[in-house]
């Protein structure tokens, strides 16, 4: 099952749209500046719809089946959120609207900032960052700016556990600091001796994920935070796993100084096949003035509670600066706001309780079937190993590919790196018991197949639109564009480098 490229169904002269007449007296176009042609497809509206609807059928998605992808929180994306973001008053609102003309949007953003800060026990939040990675960059730049603001120029290192997601060390480098890797103990917790040895006055801070990337709550987290603070460093929490924490613990109260939230994980905004998202950042007293801007502030409070206050966009006084052209992925703000409004505080706590319940249920059911490197109560996800003693040549990847034959998306593979053949499983709270039971049965069946008929796994998947793809060929040939590009090289001045 494959679909033609849209260019392959194109015919010269066909068009899908009719546009109005120019309607004003025309001027001559500046001929010397114009391009000759534009190589876009020429197709009808029906062709476009069939093409993309057929393409959509080639995807696995939350709305078509279970998606237990660890650390990604593939929960149900409520439909009311989609309608809300498409309301004309939001969709047609210009980003550089005057404050008086955008009070509705600003009020919504203000509420969202306030709720996110409250949920984590922070003083303030910025909802500008477009993704978790951008939130991380913001947080690390804030830590850097904090030390520089205190004229402390020697703090150039950020400690990152070896269990961390790759974005953490990449973020540190991007911010111009040095990532120092810390070993984990066998439970995936921070090794306190290694931490003690690494701490000195060159440490700007530490980045850590809670619950850890192995899905467990580090019981020594308070010790870790205290030690880093005593050494003059600040604590950054990667909030990728926030779905386990709402109403369970406030990171700000635990002692974290700054964290990012993934609105596209915890707060149900859709992943969109790889974005857009929102990586909001929360900060305590120490760092709140360094948040990326603009953030929404109440410009004029009102005494009469029937009058709405006046909101405005402001740059925090010591802000690390702008991270996006405008004030963030507002469409995602609307969705997350709607989600939080429907749940309320108690409801969000129920979300985390049930996310943890579901993960522990699946973990309990698969104990003894798959090796579990950390065998204790987990948070909202848990890690298994996709390797069986006595069965050679079966990898986590083979188990993952075989799952596709049962209409289930594979768990996260090969992360965290410190667990060999890792399968990281996160069911989320929106899956019902029957769906989880089915998943458990399929996982058991695959474990049996691995022993009885390993080739069935190695050649999987069998029922998907395409079979395993040739990644080596893709990287070597590097065909990333299906159209011939006009050769302008002769017109270019030879490069001196």
């Amino acid at each position, binding site marked *: 099952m494959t679909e033609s490229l849209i260019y392959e169904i194109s015919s010269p002269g066909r068009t899908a749209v009719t546009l109005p007449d120019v309607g004003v007296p025309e001027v001559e176009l500046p001929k010397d500046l114009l391009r000759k042609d534009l190589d876009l497809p020429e197709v009808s509206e029906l062709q476009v719809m069939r093409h993309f609807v057929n393409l959509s059928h080639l995807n696995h998605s939350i709305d078509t089946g279970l998606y237990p992808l660890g650390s990604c929180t593939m929960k149900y994306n409520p439909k009311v959120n989609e309608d809300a973001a498409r309301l004309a008053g939001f969709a047609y609102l210009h980003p550089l609207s005057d404050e008086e003309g955008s009070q509705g949007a600003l009020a919504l953003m203000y509420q969202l900032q306030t709720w996110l800060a409250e949920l984590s026990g922070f003083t303030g939040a910025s909802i500008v960052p477009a993704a978790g990675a951008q939130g991380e960059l913001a947080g690390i730049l804030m830590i850097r700016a904090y030390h520089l603001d205190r004229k402390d120029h020697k703090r150039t290192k950020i400690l990152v556990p070896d269990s961390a997601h790759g974005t953490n060390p990449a973020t540190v480098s991007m911010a111009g600091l040095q990532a120092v890797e810390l070993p984990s103990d066998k439970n995936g917790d921070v090794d306190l001796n290694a931490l003690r040895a690494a701490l000195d006055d060159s440490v700007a801070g530490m980045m850590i994920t809670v619950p850890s990337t192995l899905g467990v709550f580090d019981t020594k987290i308070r010790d870790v935070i205290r030690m880093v603070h005593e050494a003059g460093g600040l604590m950054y929490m990667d909030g990728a796993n926030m779905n386990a924490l709402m109403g369970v613990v406030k990171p700000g109260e635990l002692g974290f100084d700054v964290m990012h939230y993934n609105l596209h994980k915890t707060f149900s905004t859709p992943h969109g096949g790889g974005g857009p998202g929102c990586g909001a950042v929360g900060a305590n007293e120490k760092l709140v003035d360094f948040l990326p801007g603009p953030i929404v502030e109440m410009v004029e409070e009102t005494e009469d509670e029937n009058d709405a206050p006046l909101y405005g966009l402001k740059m925090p006084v010591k802000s690390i600066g702008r991270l996006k052209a405008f004030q963030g992925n507002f469409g995602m703000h609307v969705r997350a706001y709607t989600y939080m409004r429907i749940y309320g505080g108690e409801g969000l706590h129920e979300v985390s309780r049930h996310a943890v319940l579901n993960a522990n249920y699946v973990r309990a059911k698969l104990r003894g079937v798959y090796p579990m490197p950390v065998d204790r109560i987990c948070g909202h996800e848990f890690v298994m190993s996709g390797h069986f003693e006595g069965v050679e040549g079966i990898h986590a990847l083979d188990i993952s590919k075989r799952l596709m034959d049962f209409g289930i998306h594979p768990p996260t593979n090969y992360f965290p790196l410190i667990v060999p053949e890792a399968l990281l499983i996160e069911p989320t709270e929106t899956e019902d018991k029957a769906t989880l039971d089915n998943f458990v049965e399929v996982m058991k069946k695959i474990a049996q197949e691995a022993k009885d008929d390993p080739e069935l796994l190695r050649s999987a998947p069998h029922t998907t639109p395409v079979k395993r793809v040739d*990644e*080596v060929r*893709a*990287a*070597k040939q590097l065909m990333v564009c299906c159209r011939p590009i006009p050769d302008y090289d002769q017109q270019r001045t030879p490069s001196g480098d």
Partner: protein
Amino acid sequence: MSSQTPSELKYARTDEYLRLEGENATIGISDFAQEQLNDIVFVELPEVGAHVAQGEPFGAVESVKAASDLLMPVGGTVTEVNSQLSDEPELLNTSPYDKGWIVKIKVDDPSEANALMDAAAYIEYCKTR
């Protein structure tokens, strides 16, 4: 593992080999390294004339699963690069010590090679990984 480790070469802990011939040397990656990387799809080469100190990066190799920097086993000035690798990066897999050489350099100080491993030491080192 049945990697080849020619005895006339010196090896760095980061898996580059050095074939020292007087003031000149040829540099590539070991058979062990190419096996670890699997199908190599791209090699980034330095410019001829570039001077690179010992331990500094002079290029990179990529497979579909990994990318790693190439570090100079001894400091020197690049005199020649194997431009065939641009079209046929797989030469690193099929012929690491011969057609898959990466750069030739004029060595700053041949005594820097003393810090490298000989074949026997490198074989032992690979066993520990």
